[in-house]
């Protein structure tokens, strides 16, 4: 009998689902090899069925997306109960992802901006969505919206992680293959290479041995050389700190790595580490000069924690 597999999404964009669809022809093989019991984007489902299942009867649950609402949290717990193996798919599930940047603010802040301050919104009465609302006698409910975005492993126990925003179809295929072959590594592993991106970077040979950055550049400020190491062009390429396995797609697109694959296994706080490496390359020992060179990085937190704010040491802004 084929192993039961579930795909679920929390606070995500569906890019991870697209990555599955990007398996293209080989998706049919996957469909043939497993018994998909849950896949909102492609197949009809209902929660009652999942609840009715025996605990641990699902071989593996692939969950993408961060945890933003009470409903997502409940789904996460439900699938943890039902699945022997839970695999966090994509940057959002692994690190909070770009939605995790909401940890700069909280629920009130988000509501204020979206439902009050938005220039196109007409809302004199200051209406905001309510978890329970009575509309001329009809009771309607919405899931609760948390103050803080969390990654999946901060809510439930996660067995494996597939990085990327989105992950490559290859990584997904490999994970499924490893699952079917019972060849998954030790618990907690990230199912991707454990070296930084520079190792496979097509431009690595153009990086000098002694890089010193005297001025940081923003991508729109210069015409980017399509051959040369992006850091040597003064661009904030986070490749040195970022796990490889993406196929250097952004570099191929002639843009710097923004770190969606997250850190290697040896690093706890991605942003702190990349900050250390970048700052060390500032080409001055004069305090004022150092400050002005570093001023060339306009948004350190948003840049270094672009995908990982919720799993950083500090996790969220203190308001």
């Amino acid at each position: 009998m084929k192993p039961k597999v579930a795909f679920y999404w929390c606070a995500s964009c569906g890019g991870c689902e697209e990555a599955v669809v990007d398996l293209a022809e080989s998706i049919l093989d996957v469909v043939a090899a497993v018994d998909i019991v849950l896949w909102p984007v492609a197949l009809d489902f209902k929660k009652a069925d999942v609840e009715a299942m025996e605990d641990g009867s699902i071989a593996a649950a692939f969950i993408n997306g961060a945890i933003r609402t009470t409903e997502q949290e409940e789904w996460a717990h439900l699938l943890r109960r039902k699945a022997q193996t839970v695999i966090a798919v994509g940057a959002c599930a692994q690190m909070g992802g770009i939605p995790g940047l909401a940890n700069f603010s909280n629920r009130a802040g988000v509501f204020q901006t979206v439902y009050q301050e938005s220039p196109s919104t007409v809302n004199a009465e200051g209406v905001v969505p309510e978890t329970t609302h009575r509309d001329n006698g009809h009771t309607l409910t919405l899931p609760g919206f948390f103050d803080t975005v969390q990654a999946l492993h901060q809510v439930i126990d996660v067995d494996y992680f597939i990085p990327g925003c989105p992950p490559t179809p290859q990584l997904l295929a490999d994970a499924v293959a490893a699952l079917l072959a019972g060849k998954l590594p030790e618990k907690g592993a990230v199912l991707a290479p454990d070296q930084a991106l520079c190792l496979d970077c097509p431009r690595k040979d153009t990086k000098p041995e002694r890089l010193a950055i005297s001025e940081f550049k923003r991508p729109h400020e210069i015409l980017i050389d399509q051959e040369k190491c992006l850091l040597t062009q003064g661009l904030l390429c986070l490749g040195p700190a970022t796990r490889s396995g993406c196929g250097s797609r952004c570099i191929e697109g002639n843009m710097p790595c923004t770190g969606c694959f997250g850190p290697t296994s040896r690093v706890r706080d991605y942003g702190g580490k990349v900050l250390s490496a970048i700052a060390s390359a500032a080409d001055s020992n004069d305090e004022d000069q150092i400050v002005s060179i570093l001023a060339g990085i306009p948004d350190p937190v948003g840049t270094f924690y672009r995908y990982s704010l919720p799993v950083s040491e500090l996790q969220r802004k203190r308001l």
Partner: protein
Amino acid sequence: MPESTSTRRITIDPITRLEGHGKIDIFLDDAGQVERAYFQVPELRGFEKFAQGRPAEDMPQITSRICGVCPTAHHVASARALDNLYKVTPPPAGRKIRELVYSTFMAEDHALHFYFLGGPDFVVGPTAPPAERNVLGVIAKVGVEVGKKVISMRRRLRELTSLAAGKAGHPVFGLPGGVAKRLTAADQVRFQTVAAEAVEFAQFTLEVFDNIVLKNSDYVNLILADFFTHRTYYMGLVDDHNQVNFYDGSLRVVSPEGNETVKFAPEKYLDYIAERVEPWSYMKFCYLKSPGWKGFTDGAESGVYSVAPLARLNVADRMATPLAQQAYEKYIGTLGKPVHHTLANHWARVIELLYAAERMKELADDPEIIDPNVRTIPTAVPTEGVGVVEAPRGTLIHHYQTDERGLITKANLIVATQNNAARIAMSVEKAAKGVLSGKQVSEGLLNMVEMAFRAYDPCLGCATHSLPGSMPLSVRVRGRNGETLSILERDSDGAIRRA
């Protein structure tokens, strides 16, 4: 990865659970008549908030994460907003590469919807067992060869996007003043080859639609059915000749009678469009400032309007490419103009698929596309910028304000499905009333309701900047006092079950 950190969160007041990602609550009155049906979206992520403080040039990549189904739409809308922000015009090659990638994406996305999401309703049939009503069912119906063709077409289109934009899922090529990467002669050849195939593929798809839908009176009647019809305003981008354009142009609004009521530069959107908050949904509802919000109702007095393929073909006078124009004429000839039948979206979409493919070919054949000068370096001090494109699901507006360093101080995003939100809610209620009232609820009827909004290809990910894709459905039927009479859901085996 650090090991799971103990959560610092305490949830108080555990709240009533919801189901799925779209939700419809239907309330019946004593007579068992449908009194009110609600269409809710229970998701929100708040991009407008955490965009604040980010460097403007990062917005194309940040906002593409609003939706992984149409990342290119957000990416390009954002890049266009940055042009406007920095008052910079991309060099010809830069502009053309953007539109080339964009057309490629539109073709891919429309194909995805027709065959994977919406198409099954027609190709396989609205009353067919749901287990078959998916892409596999489509393949079964049209043949494995065709199925393979569909899949590989999509694959190659996405490969092209990756080639020019870095990644198909969340591209990286868009910058103020142009694109990051130039195209080589070799790249051009690849685009030309695939573009030619895409045109054939689009024509073929049109045939499929022709044979399976138009030649089937049941389907035609369904399209024309009153409960799938709304007489609302329509909005979309048109070029100088009032032809459909996905990438550039002015926004044109036509009345339910089909007359142009206004045509304005995207930067002016705030003068014409407003959003409304309902306490029972995280999605905001758009309407036209004039005539204004009159509730969930259609007609010339109501500000409710619609976007997406149906609307685009309603606001345009013609299509910009020859083959698409032929198809357009047949469409108008058959349904008249404006077309108010929601389900006609599917037909309009296939016509747009053809247009996208043709446009793609035009641009791929343009010798200028491989010009190395693909970007203009901005010099102006940034203040405010608006960018608009036609996403597969309709008009998409990005609006940024920044400080002098180009850090976002305010971001406003109006997304395709939001423009349609009110009409979708109406469609759902009307369909519910139309098909359910006083009847024994059946799976077939249930799917009719579902079709009412699937036709819009609603992207709730976009709509609430949260969750995308097709809508899993559960319908809850409640009595006068709100007690649940029945919940109807479909099993994966297709059988209807009452909870």
